[in-house]
């Protein structure tokens, strides 16, 4: 390390015998060896201010969530129960026309629906009746048809489940809930 030398005197110009303080010296009156230092107190003050800003932002998001929730419950008729035999599948779009989804009629008679996008790289999954699982053709991802949880391949997260409602013989997709 370089040894610090004696601090250089503040440069002033002498005009008619009097030292003239330059404008920058008046506006920034820091000693040269102190101007690169931030005191602990200043750091603490800055930290508390940043903490306040983060608190305000978090509280703002919480208030926004209370006043203007993003979640909108959408109901969409997707199929008739009589149209899908046990062990069969039906493909539909939910919640938007660009989101693929899959409805399964499980061998035990239960209906389940999942998002059709693989949680690895968003390829479209399909139902494989032979294995009774959902498969992704891109990287051989396999999902459990009952729960949507990953069984094999690169996917690590479950397929988002779509809640179903049945009225008579009509099945409705009600909302999409991330798992």
């Amino acid at each position, binding site marked *: 390390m370089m040894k610090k030398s004696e601090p250089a005197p503040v440069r002033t110009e002498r005009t008619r015998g009097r030292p003239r303080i330059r404008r920058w010296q008046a506006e920034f009156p820091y000693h040269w060896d102190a101007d690169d230092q931030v005191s602990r107190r200043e750091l*603490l003050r800055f930290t508390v201010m940043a903490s306040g800003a983060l608190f305000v932002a*978090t509280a703002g998001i919480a208030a926004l969530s*209370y006043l203007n929730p*993003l979640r909108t419950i959408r109901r969409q008729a997707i199929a008739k129960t009589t149209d899908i035999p046990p062990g069969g599948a039906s493909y539909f779009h939910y919640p938007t026309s660009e989101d693929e989804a899959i409805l399964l009629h499980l061998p035990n008679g239960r209906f389940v629906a999942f998002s059709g996008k693989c949680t690895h790289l968003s390829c479209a999954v399909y139902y494989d009746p032979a294995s009774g699982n959902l498969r992704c053709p891109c990287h051989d991802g396999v999902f459990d048809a009952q729960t949507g949880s990953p069984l094999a391949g690169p996917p690590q997260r479950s397929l988002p489940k779509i809640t179903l409602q049945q009225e008579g013989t009509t099945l409705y997709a009600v909302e999409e809930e991330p798992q």
Partner: protein
Amino acid sequence: MNGRAYPLTETTSDIERRPPLGQVAVVLMGLAIGILLLGIQLWLLTTALDLYLAGQGTYMWLLALISGLVFVGGLLVLRMLARHPHLTPRRGG
């Protein structure tokens, strides 16, 4: 600073404040904990945003409450330091 006393202007007098001898580590640890808490607050903010975008705002008030407690704690520390600055006189000043 190289340990020698130089005349400093009034605006830099706060850098001459030093914690009592032997308590420098305590002060630095306090600062480190404060910065760590700031990181936790940042994490709480990102979690709140994530929950908001996922449409799950049920427990978001809890995140805001924890963040607020950290902020109030910081304010209390500042207030405490303002009341008890513990100035150590500079030698040879």
